[in-house]
């Protein structure tokens, strides 16, 4: 916690307005996925960072951590999947509604190490969001995107097919199965992954000591390192997912601890 005394003036808490919130995916039984745009006059977020989002009229207590999907001209965008009560509120919110944002929070994807070969972006479901924002900063053709979905894919329409490998659990697109079944880190300069913890664990295993960075999800209350609720156990001891992460070197994370 020695770093908790760092100054963080590159962030803000602001009451903002939802500019748009459009469904991009609606598989019955799986819940809604929307892309939300929010006016944001605070500091520019970097790929890998997230915000805490809470509607002004919220029926839940805590903000929800959501990764930045993109940013342009005072508009920050998010890709939000419906899971429980808090995310349901967010996906069903409407343009014009007031929303409170804290952020940008957390660390950023590290600069890729020097070397040969493309970079692998490995996203599971809604985990593609922070990788999409990262991909905008990478030279075209310098990365390959692996996307794993339960059923139909979403959010990856903008990528040229030759840079995409898709998998789906029900076989409705690409490989039938999970991304770790088809992903091989060999030949990649570095691996950047985000998705459900079991997926990240398997990615971390296949990557071994090769450069691999994973963005982890933990329940959060404060999002700023104050509550110690989002602990990640690592080879270097307890780390807070919200400020020491959410991105960690895969080899440092103790998954079963």
């Amino acid at each position: 916690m020695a770093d908790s005394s760092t100054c963080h003036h590159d962030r803000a808490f602001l009451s903002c307005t939802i500019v748009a919130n459009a469904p991009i995916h609606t598989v019955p039984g799986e819940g809604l996925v929307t892309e939300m745009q929010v006016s944001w006059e605070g500091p520019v977020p970097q790929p890998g960072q997230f915000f805490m989002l809470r509607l002004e009229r919220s029926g839940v207590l805590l903000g929800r951590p959501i990764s930045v999907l993109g940013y342009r001209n005072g508009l920050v965008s998010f890709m939000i999947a419906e899971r429980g009560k808090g995310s349901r509120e967010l996906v069903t919110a409407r343009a014009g509604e007031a929303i409170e944002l804290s952020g940008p929070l957390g660390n950023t994807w590290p600069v890729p190490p020097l070397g040969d070969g493309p970079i692998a972006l490995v996203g599971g479901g809604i985990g593609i969001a922070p990788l999409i924002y990262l991909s905008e900063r990478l030279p075209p053709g310098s990365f390959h995107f692996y996307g794993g979905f339960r059923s139909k894919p979403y959010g990856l329409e903008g990528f040229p097919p030759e840079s995409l490998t898709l998998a789906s659990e029900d076989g409705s697109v690409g490989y039938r199965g999970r991304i770790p079944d088809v992903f091989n880190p060999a030949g990649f300069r570095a691996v950047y992954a985000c998705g459900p913890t079991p997926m990240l664990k398997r990615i971390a295993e296949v990557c071994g000591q090769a450069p691999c960075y994973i963005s982890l999800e933990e329940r959060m209350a404060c999002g700023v390192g104050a509550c110690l609720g989002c602990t990640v156990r690592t080879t270097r001891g307890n780390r807070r997912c919200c400020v020491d992460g959410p991105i960690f070197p895969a080899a440092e994370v103790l998954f079963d601890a």
Partner: protein
Amino acid sequence: MHNNNIQPDLSVQIAGITFKNPVIAASGTFGYGQEYAGLIDVSRLGGICTKGLTLHPREGNRGRRLHETASGLMNSIGLENPGIPAFIEQELPAMLELGPRVIANLSGSTVEEYQEGARLLSATGIDMIELNISCPNVKAGGMAFGLCPADAATVVQAVRRVCDKPLMVKLSPNAPDLVGVALACINAGADALSLVNTFKALAFDIRRRTPIFDHVTAGLSGPAIKPLALRMVWDVCAAVQVPVVGMGGIASTEDALEFFMAGATAIQIGTATFSRPSTMIDIIEGLEQYMETERISHLSELSLQDRE
């Protein structure tokens, strides 16, 4: 009626220490004071309580640490902290620069550990010690002391002996005889009381069919508990003469006013800061405005307690 041209004075006195306003960040919800920098102007707060400190470093609890309930938050952090020596060296200097009063929240599993921690903290620039005898989340983490008057008296007395700083004792809402504990703490030398800490609560994971938390129970905070906390603050204020710092679910100026009506001298805010980081600033401004509108020169006028 009071003079309506006077700028409202929000300052309060607790055990000889002047707080510029009565709004204090609650222990465990505001780190060591730096964490919310950038989101709010931390210097405007009346005071900040540190995360619960123990003599030796603690890793905290395993497994899930947070669970949201209806208007409530359950936590099982388990007093993760770097230990008092590391706190004094690494966190305190910057904290003392912030402006708000610095209150060290002190925990321990034995009387000796409390005592040694208090000794170390006494030699620093902190303004006050908040003795946590009420943490429900660690086996030997203080709550045992806070549950019965005799045990509470023992630890307060021991700490009092080695502590030159003003001593506030933080009470547990889980004590069967809360007022009894309060009186015992005062007799043992407490200068002030704060309450409430979190309520012992339980939640299950429906999918895995296990308790959510490794330690089964965890502590409940947030707006859900406000009516219960307020009742306890009222009961304690009715029984004691020392200043009482009230907390438990305060999230708005209206909530804060209720605690002053119950007799509290100051308030702490925890969970609501998570919901809306500006809560404490909004309340400071809200109190100021309320005092102006209602022509109140000091918040103590709001108390409905019959105190001399």
